[in-house]
């Protein structure tokens, strides 16, 4: 329902310059919306943190094997190496956070059972969540766009076969499909990259459906007819005309989807089928702290809050973009 109305905005503009105006207009409308702006702030902070930590943890690689003297972690003295388990006697495990009577400022969120600084692990955990969200959404987007565009453009039996097989994937609950896929593909030793591919594949159907319904309307446009009449090859029509003109609603969905994938992979890691120790990942941290629930509850609270805030950011932003693209909802 709402998708159709978005398409009017998307392809009503037609020409290249107007389209650009459309994007700019959308962005300015999103920024006008207070809640969407907050969502954008949260997303920016999370993206910044993950980029920062990604560069930081790869710095020694960048300097060609030389152990670099400077790391970003030194510039921000509260952060430590999130994976290094301190030898016995160096740091106590299970320390409470700073506002607790037994807490200390050196470990603002306390330490995990192995004595690692929890703030560092939470901060570095953003990297995993963000890359999971972005890469698996990209896989779903790419696969869904190809399948949906081909199905919608050719129609008939191609459409039937592609969309029916996609619906079958849709019929198995994503989390179940992803667990089974991840574990079986990895031969019983799951890791985060299998999870990313699994989540991506599980979400191809939804993207394919949205793209297809868009393509069905774009296909009838005069410029497609013109391209076909002037002998442009099918794959060029799909690639240059069909896909760019049916992309706007999918982008909205993709933003919302990033939150969903982060949520699912957190669950996957919580069950032990996502990120593996010692990788700092919020879901994995919740899995470990689940066993220490009675002795240190803070260990279960921080990663959950981190997931909550991140997903909320993506959801607010996605809602904002959706509202900006869909003039029918007037809240």
């Amino acid at each position, binding site marked *: 329902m709402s998708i159709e109305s978005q398409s009017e905005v998307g392809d009503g503009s037609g020409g290249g310059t107007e389209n650009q105006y459309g994007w700019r207009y959308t962005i300015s409308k999103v920024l006008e919306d207070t809640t969407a702006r907050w969502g954008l702030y949260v997303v920016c902070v999370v993206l910044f943190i993950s980029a920062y930590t990604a560069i930081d943890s790869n710095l020694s690689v960048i300097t060609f094997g030389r152990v670099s003297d400077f790391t970003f972690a030194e510039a921000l003295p509260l952060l430590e190496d999130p994976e290094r388990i301190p030898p016995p006697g160096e740091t106590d495990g299970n320390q409470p956070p700073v506002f607790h009577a037994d807490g200390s400022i050196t470990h603002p969120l306390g330490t995990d059972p192995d004595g690692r600084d929890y703030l560092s692990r939470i901060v570095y955990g953003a990297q995993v969540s963000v890359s999971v969200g972005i890469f698996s959404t990209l896989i779903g987007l790419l696969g869904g766009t190809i399948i949906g565009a081909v199905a919608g453009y050719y129609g008939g039996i191609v459409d039937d076969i592609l969309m029916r097989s996609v*619906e079958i994937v849709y019929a198995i609950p994503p989390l179940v499909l992803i667990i*089974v896929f991840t574990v079986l593909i990895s031969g019983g030793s799951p890791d985060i990259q299998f999870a990313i591919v699994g989540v991506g594949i599980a979400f191809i159907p939804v993207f394919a459906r949205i793209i297809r319904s868009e393509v069905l309307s774009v296909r009838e446009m005069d410029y497609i007819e013109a391209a076909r009449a002037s002998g442009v090859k099918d794959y060029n029509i799909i690639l240059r005309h069909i896909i760019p003109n049916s992309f706007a609603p999918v982008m909205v969905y993709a933003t919302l989807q990033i*939150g969903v994938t982060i949520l699912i992979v957190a669950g996957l890691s919580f069950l032990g089928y996502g990120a593996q120790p010692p990788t700092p990942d919020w879901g994995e941290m919740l899995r470990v702290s689940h066993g220490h*629930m009675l002795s240190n509850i803070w260990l*279960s609270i921080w990663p959950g809050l981190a*997931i*909550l805030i991140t997903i909320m950011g993506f959801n607010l932003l996605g809602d904002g973009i959706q509202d900006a693209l869909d003039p029918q909802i007037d809240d």
Partner: protein
Amino acid sequence: MRLLRYTIYRLVQSIPVLIGITLITFILANLAPGDPVQLMLHGQEVDEDLVRTVEERYGLDQPLHERYLNYMAGLVQGDFGHSIHRDRPVRDLMLDRIGPTLLLVLSAYVFAIVTSIPLGILAAKRRNEPADHISRIVALFGVSTPSFWIGIMLIVIFSVTLGVLPSSGLVYPWRTPADTSFFGYLAHFYDVLRHLLLPMIALGTLQMATLMRVERTQMINSLQGEYVKLARAYGVPERRVLRKHAFKPAQLPIITIIGLNLSTALGGAVLIEYVFNINGMGRLLIEAIQELDYQLIMGITIVIGFIFVIGVIITDISYAYIDPRVTYGEEE
């Protein structure tokens, strides 16, 4: 008659999907690296003949497509194969575990529906007032919080800190209590509810949040409808407008959403069963994965897929029952 035709139409339409689910699951299970017989042996050295006998016994010596056809032939008769690891029929293993999962999912839905519909209506009625903003915030938290984390937090608050509710397991309502008097049953029912409350809320929060948002939008649209304007013009009291005229048409999309959300609810049940130590299908799936018991993994995936498809069909039929405009899909 119309409903019967629609039901048959939907059932026939779902057959390819059901077959597709078995095919995907079968391919996945057989794509997996590792030879089942070798897994059974845990790396022990044994006689070649013995390996061949075992392979023959489980039909593992046949080509893939024949194994699939054999599996399907069994499936049609309700035979999900044999769990090599546990040496029991997969069907029996699943029958033991399916009850708790269905109980959990259904109660989560009851919780979600009972809370979301009044809240959604309230938000629509008091649009852009504090009640509406609060409901928006609740919905936002509901869709953004991992269900298993809600479960953990509930355990911490109600089981660990306050000590008022149990943190693990379920009491099954279909078991006969030790005390079979009226009060025995009453105490049993109370026990069932006590155990169900936390997992129900943990699993139902996401559903509640999504349903509440849909309910709000639908009610707002419905309240702007011509029929509501007409009712108001006739001087029908506002309460009656809300309950009689605006409410019913707004509920149709809710039914569809309920059916489609079954997918997330069934997936979420895996996590909630893990957190609350509930012996349902989800935990069985995790156990089967740890044991790399392919027959059991296949069986569970197929059954969960089937439950979802059947759930969607049921909601479609009830939709057709409520809305007489639904056709048999022939125009599509």
